[in-house]
C-alpha cells in the first residue's frame, strides 16, 4: 500500500505572492509615451538672404517673456484666450480671388489672415522662459489647429481628424492605413501647420 503523501500547506502562498506584488507595485513606473509631435525646420545652408515677404496680417506673433506672460500681436493676453484667438486668426479667410478660402468660416476681417495656407504663427520666447509655459503655448496652438482640422474632416468624411490620426497609428491593416493616409494628407493640406520659432533673444 502506497504511503499517503502529507498535503503541503498552501496557506503561506498568499503571503509570498503579496510580497512579490508589493515589490512590483513599488518598482513600477508607467512611463509616459505620449507627447506633441513636431517637425523641426531644416537649417538653411545657403547664405543668401531669403526675401520672401510675408504680409503682416498673415502673421500671428506670440511672444512669451521670461515670467511666462504672453504678448499676442502686441497685445497682452491670457493663455486661456490663446486658443480662440489662434482659431480666429487661421480660419479668418479674408483672401479673395486665388487666395479665397471656401471652407473657412472666419469673420473675413481684412486685418487678419488671407487663408490657412498663408497664415503663419510665430512663437518667440526668452532664454529664461520656463519649458512649461512654452509647452502650454504649443499645446494651445496645436489645439486650435486640431479643432479646425476636426471640423473640416467632419464635413468631408464624417470623422474627426484626431481620431483618424490615432487610428492610423494603432492600425496594423495596410488597407486601412492607406485609406487614412490620403485623408490625413488632404486635411493637412487644407490646414497646414505653419508654426515658426524665432531664435530666443532677450525680450
Amino acid at each position: 500500500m502506497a504511503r499517503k503523501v502529507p498535503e503541503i500547506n498552501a496557506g503561506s502562498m498568499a503571503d509570498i505572492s503579496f510580497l512579490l506584488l508589493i515589490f512590483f507595485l513599488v518598482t513600477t513606473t508607467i512611463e509616459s509615451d505620449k507627447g506633441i509631435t513636431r517637425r523641426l525646420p531644416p537649417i538653411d545652408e545657403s547664405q543668401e538672404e531669403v526675401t520672401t515677404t510675408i504680409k503682416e496680417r498673415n502673421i500671428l506673433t506670440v511672444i512669451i517673456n521670461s515670467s511666462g506672460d504672453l504678448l499676442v500681436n502686441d497685445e497682452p493676453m491670457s493663455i486661456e484666450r490663446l486658443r480662440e484667438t489662434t482659431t480666429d486668426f487661421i480660419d479668418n479667410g479674408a483672401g479673395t480671388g486665388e487666395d479665397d478660402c471656401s471652407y473657412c468660416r472666419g469673420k473675413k476681417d481684412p486685418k487678419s489672415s488671407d487663408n490657412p495656407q498663408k497664415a503663419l504663427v510665430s512663437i518667440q520666447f526668452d532664454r529664461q522662459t520656463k519649458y512649461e509655459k512654452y509647452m502650454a503655448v504649443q499645446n494651445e496652438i496645436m489645439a486650435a489647429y486640431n479643432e479646425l482640422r476636426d471640423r473640416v474632416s467632419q464635413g468631408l468624411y464624417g470623422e474627426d481628424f484626431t481620431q483618424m490620426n490615432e487610428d492610423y497609428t494603432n492600425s496594423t491593416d495596410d488597407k486601412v492605413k492607406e485609406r487614412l493616409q490620403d485623408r490625413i494628407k488632404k486635411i493637412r493640406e487644407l490646414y497646414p501647420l505653419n508654426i515658426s520659432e524665432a531664435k530666443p533673444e532677450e525680450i
Partner: protein
Amino acid sequence: MAKFSKKKSGELPAISTASLPDIVFMLLFFFMVSTTMRDSNILVEQRLPKADQVEKLENKNLVMYIYAGPPSTRYQRQFGTAGRIQLNDKFAKVSEIRPFIIQERESKNPGYRDKLVTALKIDRETNMSIVSDIKDELRKAKAYRVNYTVNVGSPLD
C-alpha cells in the same frame, strides 16, 4: 418533537481563503506585464509638463531619448541645480548630442533610419535656453522629428 435540531450557536463558518493566492497572482501578473523596466537610470528631475493635444509614439524601437532638467536631489550637491542634459546614463554637454544621434542612428536598421523620432523628456522648470540648444543640435544632426513627451492633462489648470 423537532426533527431538525437547531445548530448549537450562531458561530460563523470560516471564510475560505483558498482563492486568495489566485487573486493576488492575477494582480501580480498584471503588474509584471505592464511594468517597463527602464534601460537608463534617470539622473535629472522628470516632472513633465501637461498637454492634451497628444499623439502616441508609433514604434518604441525607433525612439531616441534625450532627458533634460535640474539634477535629482541626490546629485545636486555634486552637479548643482542648474538644468542639465542627460544622454544614456550620464550627464552630457550640448556638443555631445550630435555624436549621440549619429551613433543611435547607426545602431538601427537602415530601412528605418528616416523614421527615427527623438523624444524630449524635459522637466517643466527647465529654461528654454537648454531646450533651444538641444533643438539646434538636432537640426544640425538632421534629426527633424521630435516628440515633446508630456503627461496628459490640461496645461491651463
